[in-house]
């Protein structure tokens, strides 16, 4: 089974407490400190990791390219929601858009502008908004990005508004521009699959899967049924319930579902990563 290194610990996100979040934030304030964990994970057998469109992860990717000690592939999660929510709250949507434009690669900016003009003429303003996702991602495509995943806040928000078609249009555009498969993170697998019932082709879907059923909405049983029935590639996240579930218990549960081939572990502890890797791969 493929074990993917998560990124929450590197950008100070803990599901256990704000105190723990701050400890991790301080511990991983330099790209070197993140690289140490990545190298240890690589030695254990981990070959891919999640990076989010976060300034710290961009610094890490730049450092990673320079040191060139390991050959990881990266799954890019877009966007870093907290940053843009704060921008929208304090500066409004236009101010947030300017922040996005300032951080984008010039080539993508030009392409995005041309496309946006067409969208405005055709009154496809929602598609203009999704161009923002591409602009946010653009600085990261210089690195070994093998997959892109749209953050659950965007995925589930657009599904809530009944805009699954906008999500699919964004996916098609990003795949067309960057030749990298685009998938979705969702906390609501049954709802997602219902809305994408008509979609042809195999999707990459990242969703919480853990024995507590934490954030498996609307119920653990319903998500399990969906996992068993679907042909899409399900990537299990939040497998430790944010640190509240022992690794062995989680792995036993995931293996019992049969269909899962990819798991994310958000840990900076090499012993935990090794334990998860060995249990998942039957050692």
């Amino acid at each position, binding site marked *: 089974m493929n074990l993917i290194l998560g990124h929450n610990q590197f950008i100070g996100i803990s599901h256990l407490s704000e105190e723990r979040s701050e400890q991790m934030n301080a511990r991983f304030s330099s790209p070197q400190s993140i690289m140490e964990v990545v190298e240890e994970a690589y030695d254990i057998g981990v070959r891919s990791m999640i990076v989010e469109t976060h300034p710290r992860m961009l610094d890490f990717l730049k450092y990673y390219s320079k040191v060139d000690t390991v050959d990881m592939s990266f799954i890019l999660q877009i966007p870093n929601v907290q940053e843009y929510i704060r921008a929208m709250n304090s500066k409004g949507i236009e101010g947030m858009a300017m922040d996005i434009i300032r951080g984008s690669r010039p080539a993508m900016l030009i392409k995005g502008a041309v496309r946006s003009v067409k969208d405005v003429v055709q009154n496809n303003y929602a598609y203009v908004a999704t161009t923002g996702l591409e602009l946010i991602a653009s600085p990261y495509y210089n690195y070994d990005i093998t997959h892109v995943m749209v953050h659950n806040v965007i995925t589930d928000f657009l599904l809530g508004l009944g805009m699954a078609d906008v999500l699919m249009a964004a996916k098609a555009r990003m795949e067309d521009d960057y030749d990298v498969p685009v998938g979705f993170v969702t906390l609501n697998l049954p709802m997602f699959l219902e809305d994408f019932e008509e979609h042809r082709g195999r999707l990459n879907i990242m969703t919480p899967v853990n024995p507590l059923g934490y954030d498996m909405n*609307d119920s653990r049983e319903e998500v399990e049924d969906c996992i068993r029935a679907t042909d899409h590639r399900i990537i299990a996240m939040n497998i430790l319930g944010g640190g509240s579930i022992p690794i062995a218990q989680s792995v036993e549960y995931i293996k019992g579902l049969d269909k899962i081939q990819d798991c994310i572990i958000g840990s900076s502890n090499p012993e935990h990563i090794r334990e998860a890797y060995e249990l998942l791969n039957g050692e």
Partner: protein
Amino acid sequence: MDVGVIGLGKMGLLHAAIFNRLDGCHVTALCDINELMLKILRSGNEDVRTYTDYKLMLDENDLDIVVIATPVFLHGSMATTALKKGMHVLIEKPMAKTSEECSNIIGNANGSKSLVGYCRRFMPTYNNAKKLIECEELGKVLSFRSHFYLSQVDKRMEGWQFDPYKGGGGALIDLGCHALDMIHYILGPMRSVSCRTERVISESVEDIARLELTLCSGVTGNLAVSWVESGYRLPEMMLEVTCEKGVARVAEKYLETVSNDGTVNKRFKQCFPDPIPFNIGGREYTAEDLHLVQSVRDAKDTKCDIKVGSMPTSVIDSAYLSARDGQPHKVRYL
């Protein structure tokens, strides 16, 4: 049920997505002064009617529920207009700038159901803390301390939250209202308050507030509120209650008890059953919106209607008076 949303910032958008997805509900009207936002949402959903004038929206649509998620200074007029039309309302916190404005809203309730957006009432850690305190598992309450911290402000910032006319104040009214509501919810009403405020970075509103509170039960405690506190990427509302047999400490992510004999029991939010149909941007928001829908269907009052939701504002009124004159002030509820 037909739902309208006024104010399409973060909370308005969130409520729109949630209500639109709840069984038997559909968002049919949206209102904001920002036409670009309206164009974006309309282009993705042609059925929805969009407005820049909330009065026109309320006149032209027979809405069952109206969500008011605008800056605080607009809550009074919008809520009053919706309630007069017999619509049920969800008003984002704080309910209004002052008790007087709250009183006007309550006076127009007209039999409609209402909910003020104190979303932490829907988080399992706090509800389990409430049960523990109410059944006196740790004995009688002796004292409490609380904080609401967020690393939001590190430089002079723009936005209505930093304009005293639009926001009604700074950190105390914007963040402290959550903590005051939770203290009410778990420990009961307040008799008096002393308050000191500080401006550290912001020019026109307080960044920090420190309150000494006396409950009607005679129990005393304190509350610290700050949006310039470092180390809090996400907000933390912590309440620590000291009881005869130990201490209970609760925040969004955990509930911990420490008995006098040293026994520690810490449970994380993941361990509490908390079934919701879906999670869009936070489980508590779905729970909150679902609660209003169920209350409307069952013709029952919500757990934080406009009368209950006005209580933190009453305390904040007295707190600001105290901050100005340096004296403790009685809390006068509506």
